[in-house]
């Protein structure tokens, strides 16, 4: 086991607010680029709906949001303290 000393704070460039903001801007630009690319290359739509504009973008986003909400609801019912099964 190596020493795991604690430093109060550090200023790694990756976590600076300016970098984080740039990452968000770059990420959103990339997503917009992907949607644009999707209109240029046409895949084979098998079921109709999957041929709609930017299907994978909104379907992926929607599916994830639904799953996070489902997990949240289930968590209310099923979550217990992590000592629940300890004797």
């Amino acid at each position, binding site marked *: 086991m190596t020493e795991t*000393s604690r430093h109060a704070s550090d200023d790694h460039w990756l976590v600076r607010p300016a970098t984080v903001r740039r990452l968000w801007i770059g990420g959103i630009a990339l997503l917009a680029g992907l949607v644009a690319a999707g209109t240029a290359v046409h895949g084979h739509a098998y079921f109709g709906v999957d041929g709609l504009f930017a299907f994978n973008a909104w379907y992926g986003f929607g599916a994830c949001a*639904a799953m996070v909400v489902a997990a949240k609801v289930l968590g209310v019912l099923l979550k217990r303290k992590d000592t629940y099964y300890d004797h």
Partner: protein
Amino acid sequence: MTIEGLPPGLLMIAGALLLPFVGAAARRVMVLALPLAVLALVWMLPEGSGPALSFLGQSIAPLRVDALGRLFATIFLLMAAAGALFALGQSRLLEGVAAFVYAGSAVGVVLAGDLITVFVFWELMAVGSTLVLWAAGTPSAARAAMRYVQVHLLGGVVLMVGIVAHVAATGQTAFEAMRPETLGTWLILAGFLINAGAPPFSAWLPDAYPEASWSGMVFLSAFTTKTAVYALIRGFPGAEILIAIGLFMVFYGIIYALLENDMRRILAYSIVNQVGFMVTGVGIGTEMALNGAAAHAFAHILYKALLLMSAGSVLLMTGRRLCSDLGGLFRTMPVTTACGIIGALAISSFPWTSGFVAKSMIGQSAADGGLALTWFLLTAASAGVFLHAGIKFPWFVFFQKDSGLRPADPPWSMRLAMILLSALCVGIGVFPGLLYGLLPHPVDYQPYTAAHVVEMLQLLGFSGLAFFLLLPMMKRTRTVTLDADWLWRRPGAAAATRLWTGLAAVFAELTATAAAAVRSVADHARALHGPRGILARSMSSGGMAAFALVALGLALVALYR
């Protein structure tokens, strides 16, 4: 029997049992060389069945080589070697021996031609894996190992009864494709599914595996569930019920992983999720789907082991396992972070990784078969994989917040194992022909079309956006999530305790009654024969003389004629 007729799995097991008897230096060489030597042997064996033997009046074929069996044997042995490299610094000898017995048994299953041999190796696998878990040496691991072995013994019994019923009904021991139509085949299917982590027994996996040591879970993740996937591909291709079961597993894994705080339990739930994709593929049952299931098993073993090596490194170097205690480790663990991210991209089926070229065959087969609901659910699940494993694991462990922890990267053997597996994950993604050439059916599939790549990147990109926008809803809490195992860990355990207390009370009652009966016999005996007993009393000589006189007198009277 020559060495060619011996199942390679047995050689692996025999080699494992020799490990304790060689010196430490020789052992380090042997753990790396043994799986690779057995792998070479597997590839030298001709296709077809070895000699048939007779066992309990049944014909068995302990060795059968074909493309499907060889594919799984190959990945199992590669994994044993990679796991051994990662675990080179593991001081617990039992874990290494057990892991190789476990790997050898898994190889035994996939190269077995009959159900009896499958069963024997299946049970050996349960023994090996339980010992890997047990070897962690903590009380929680010991308890988890007991729960784990009980589920697997139950699964083994179900499988055995199924095999007996099947052999009795058909007279056939050969392990070939079946339909779930008779009691025997249904039970065989149930036995396979228990090991696959299917409902309602999925909980055994996330309950047990994360209690293993930092290296133990790497081995555990590879063999049991994937051997079950092999058995389903071989035994039940196209059984429609598997589509529903597989889709359930896919979403079960995602939802439970989203709720989880323990980094290795997140990855354990994601094993159920990934095996769900494979089970769905087996249920679809076309050549493309079966190829997809087999390829995905192969790819999954590599990237899941990589993810667990990365998590195991964090566990070893920090001693912490909860996401809420971790974060910011990218600063001082660059190799572990980079390899963890490559594993995370591969599990998410990112283009140019192994997951992309393997999993998309399953989705494609659903589309080709016109299975709309299956296809939409699989696509949603692909987004969910990125959400629950692809981003969640690296984000919470390596980024998130600064936990203040500054652990170094792990020792060279662990780094090397991670780098090699990362290279394989990317290598297979860039050169899919390497994997496609090993698959059981000819592959007529081109994963890299511009449309497919863009669609996948869109799906993953927007899933990533959803993750970061919904991050406030995913704050980690120190909780466990109840599962079906609650039934036997709470009311089941309480009922068992009550039954035990009841039985103990009845037993106490019975022993008390028996003791009272014995005591009363003893009291009577003491009254008659004891020191003051009527029959043990000493008498005076005068009395004795009088008694003798009376007795002789009576005899005289009685005998006088």
